């Protein structure tokens, strides 16, 4: 635990021979050359925390950004202080990294700066108030002398860490709001970055696993006589699956001297499995079941608001519609992997984990190691999107590693990654709205059905709600009566959180339906929404705070930038969608313009995104996330789909799961609301409204999609 400090204790560095550095807290270290190393606890997976979070520290520190070096904080070095997401400051997900770290990072930088100023003031014999800090140096405002941070390291290291700090005003920000290049951009471009899959440990060997094709099955026997003939083969090991939360499948692993030899040898295994009773399930049957069950009352009431009790819905004053979304894969380009080494009762792993502490606790529970005997080495992640929240692949690696006396790296093949993960829940929606004789919408019902995350991750979960993949209390329209309900439907397939979680899944239905209701009432879809948002009070629903005015403002911005109020070009149609994203202090809307070139055949001309995430730390990072969110959301609405037959996922590769391709990325524009509100998280807010905005454009053209991916309904697009 080198360098870890509790507030109030003297900084380290003072007792080291020659005083090597100044490290007042876990977040930063300054050496005598003035190099500022900033440690980042949140996991970098492309969302840019390795740049945005250091910018916050560097801002309050008044460092010179060119002196900053970023490092991944070693697991366990950050204090288990209360974090917004999960229990650990390393936890990365839910778009919480910036909003969750904002205050603590500012204080960390400010505390260090205060100590450097005090050190300089002491050296000059003046008051700290007569000093100013800027770009990695302290200035004596009396005689304009300058001492760099590097020169002050040893004096500062002798001072106590202040308990109270003064933070800068937004108007004085010099780093936040600028666009420094991603801290590892150069390394990425020259091939130097090491992801989990790239780590090499001396003496390591490699494993590839053949799993029971059906969740919940068991191994009967295996024959590796052909596998043994592959040069590089070392041995075959088997292991049992686990129950929740990770639901690891039982596996037979071939260990070999190279990844490829392990993969080749594994293909030659002959295995008999007992698939268990739940091996005949399909997504076709699932969606039939959804449709049937959607007609009944929801099993659970999630949210109820009734300010006009007694309002009657009749066939002439109401409208009902259904929508659906499939199971979705994460499909990061780096397939999941983990290196594990077991020595007696000690276990060490290397890889990318979004929730390192959950991984540690689960490995302890499922593999029987004491928590203090498990060490996790964290790496960069080649695409998270929620896949690395789970540590199923680490449990597998540990079970394999206990059966060999070398470090072993387990790498999932692409088909493994596609078939054996935990998917975004399949979902179905039945909505009903009613209006009064003046055409005001009075009542809104939303019955959400899905294959929940909660029941498979924490069996026995009742009343599945937020973050269980169930219903969602996000609702921004001021409608007098609102009833949200949920029904869980099971399938023998694992489920988990994918970027956007249930918010994205439900926004598709909500933003499609409000558009349809506007159409029924012959109102402009933009104005119809705005009248239910503008000037409305902030509201907290089931603990989730949202401001309808901000939902309106991003919608107006998107509509303005796409040219909503201008006359349409021939065969061009537009659609909009807006939302508040679950607990992230972020709001976004999309506006889509299409050109209709045939029946259900279109070209996307432009997509405009408008975001309000409060104060923006790195605008370029924000734009990159929003552009990426468009690609993610577009792939989902157009063509991503996981299908299941006989409880087996059918998709294998990145082309039959059908990721969005280069040429399919349309022209995009990203706009933002200028704000000094507390910074929100941008990782997910850019996804949800892409799909419904596109579908609303298609509806304007005369076609209303209801099933995602819309290619299933015969829609075709050209670039």
């Amino acid at each position, binding site marked *: 635990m080198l360098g870890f400090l509790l507030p109030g204790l003297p900084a380290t560095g003072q007792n080291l021979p020659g005083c090597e550095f100044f490290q007042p807290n876990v977040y930063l270290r300054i050496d005598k050359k003035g190099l500022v190393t900033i440690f980042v606890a949140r996991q970098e997976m492309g969302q840019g925390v390795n740049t945005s979070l250091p910018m916050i520290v560097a801002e309050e520190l008044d460092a010179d950004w060119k002196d900053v070096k970023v490092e991944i904080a070693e697991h366990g070095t950050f204090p288990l202080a209360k974090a917004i997401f999960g229990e650990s400051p390393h936890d990365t997900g839910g778009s919480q990294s910036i909003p969750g770290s904002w205050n603590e990072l500012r204080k960390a930088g400010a505390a260090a700066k205060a100590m450097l100023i005090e050190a300089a003031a002491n050296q000059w014999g003046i008051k700290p108030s007569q000093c100013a800090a800027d770009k990695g140096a302290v200035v004596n405002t009396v005689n304009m002398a300058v001492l760099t941070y590097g020169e002050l390291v040893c004096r500062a290291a002798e001072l106590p860490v202040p308990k109270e700090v003064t933070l800068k005003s937004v108007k004085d920000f010099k780093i936040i709001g600028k666009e420094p290049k991603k801290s590892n951009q150069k390394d990425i*471009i020259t091939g130097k970055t090491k*992801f989990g*899959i790239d780590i090499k440990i001396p003496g390591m060997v490699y494993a590839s696993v053949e799993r029971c094709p059906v969740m919940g099955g068991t191994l009967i026997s295996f024959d590796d006589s052909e596998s043994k003939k592959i040069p590089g083969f070392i041995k075959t090991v088997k292991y049992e699956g686990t129950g929740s939360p990770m639901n690891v499948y039982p596996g037979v692993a071939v260990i070999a001297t190279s990844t490829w030899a392990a993969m080749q040898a594994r293909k030659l295994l002959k295995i008999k499995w007992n698939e268990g009773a739940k091996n005949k399930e399909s997504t076709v049957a699932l969606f039939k079941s959804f449709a049937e069950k959607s007609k009944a009352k929801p099993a659970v009431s999630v949210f109820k608001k009734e300010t006009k009790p007694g309002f009657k819905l009749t066939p002439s004053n109401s409208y009902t519609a259904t929508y659906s979304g499939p199971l979705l894969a994460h499909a990061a380009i780096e397939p999941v992997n983990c290196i594990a080494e077991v020595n007696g009762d000690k276990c060490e792993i290397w890889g990318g984990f979004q929730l390192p502490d959950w991984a540690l606790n689960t490995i302890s529970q499922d593999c029987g190691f004491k928590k203090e005997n498990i060490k996790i080495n964290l790496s960069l992640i080649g695409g998270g999107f929620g896949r690395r929240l789970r540590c199923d692949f680490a449990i597998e690696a540990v079970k394999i590693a206990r059966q060999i006396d070398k470090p072993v790296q387990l790498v999932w093949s692409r088909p493994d990654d596609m078939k054996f993960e935990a998917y975004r829940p399949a979902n179905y929606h039945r909505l009903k709205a009613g209006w009064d004789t003046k055409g005001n919408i009075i009542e809104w019902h939303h019955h959400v059905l899905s294959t929940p995350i909660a029941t498979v991750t924490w069996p026995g979960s009742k009343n599945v709600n937020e973050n269980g993949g169930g219903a969602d209390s996000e609702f921004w329209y001021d409608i007098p009566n609102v009833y949200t309900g949920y029904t869980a439907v099971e399938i023998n397939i694992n489920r988990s959180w994918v970027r956007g979680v249930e918010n994205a899944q439900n926004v598709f239905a909500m933003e499609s339906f409000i558009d349809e209701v506007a159409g029924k009432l012959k109102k402009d879809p933009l104005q119809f929404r705005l009248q239910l948002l503008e000037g409305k009070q902030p509201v907290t629903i089931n603990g989730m705070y949202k401001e309808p005015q901000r939902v309106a403002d991003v919608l107006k911005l998107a509509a303005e930038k796409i040219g909503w109020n201008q006359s349409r070009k021939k065969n061009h149609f537009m659609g909009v969608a807006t939302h508040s994203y679950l607990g992230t202090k972020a709001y976004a809307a999309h506006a889509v313009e299409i050109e209709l070139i045939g029946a259900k055949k279109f070209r996307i001309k432009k997509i405009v995104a408008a975001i309000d995430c409060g104060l923006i730390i790195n605008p370029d990072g924000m734009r990159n996330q929003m552009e990426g969110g468009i690609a993610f959301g577009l792939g989902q609405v157009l063509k991503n789909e996981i299908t299941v037959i006989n409880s087996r996922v059918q998709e294998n590769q990145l082309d039959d799961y059908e990721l969005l391709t*280069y*040429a399919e990325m349309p022209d995009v524009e990203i706009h933002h609301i200028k704000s000094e509100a507390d910074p929100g998280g941008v990782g997910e807010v850019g996804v949800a409204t892409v799909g419904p905005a596109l579908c609303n454009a298609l509806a304007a053209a005369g076609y209303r999609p209801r099933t995602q991916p819309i290619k299933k309904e015969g829609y075709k697009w050209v670039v």
Partner: protein
Amino acid sequence: MNTYKLNINNKEVEVEAVPDMPLLWILRDHLELTGTKFGCGAGVCGACTVLINNEAVRSCLMKVSACINKKIISIEGLSENGTHPVQVAWNEENVPQCGYCQSGQIMAVVGLLNANKQPTEEEINETMNQIYCRCGTYHRIKKAINNAISSINK
């Protein structure tokens, strides 16, 4: 197992491998040149793209036995320090997010421009449609490609 003499990044190396071992794993596991990435093993995603005799090739499908007497360049050998025009363009446009697919993207573009200094939009699309980015950096890849084309045609 055979011994193969390979020319990789302008250096002669010797590896012992079975003839069928893909170049990808020679690079990653034998030589610890991990800049070339494994994404699918089936030639679908393009993360494993390298240059062989200046042409873009998917190293996961290229057997080591077919690699002798060929000039192989991986991302690590593309330039001294990120100075290839495509790398410079990539840096100017701030393309990467997670970065995992980016070696393959860059090498694919280099291969395309090695074959044709002024590809049409259709030709670019045809090449780039076969390389996936899950983070969605396509918008910036397009800008970087156009930027690189201007640069090499000056």
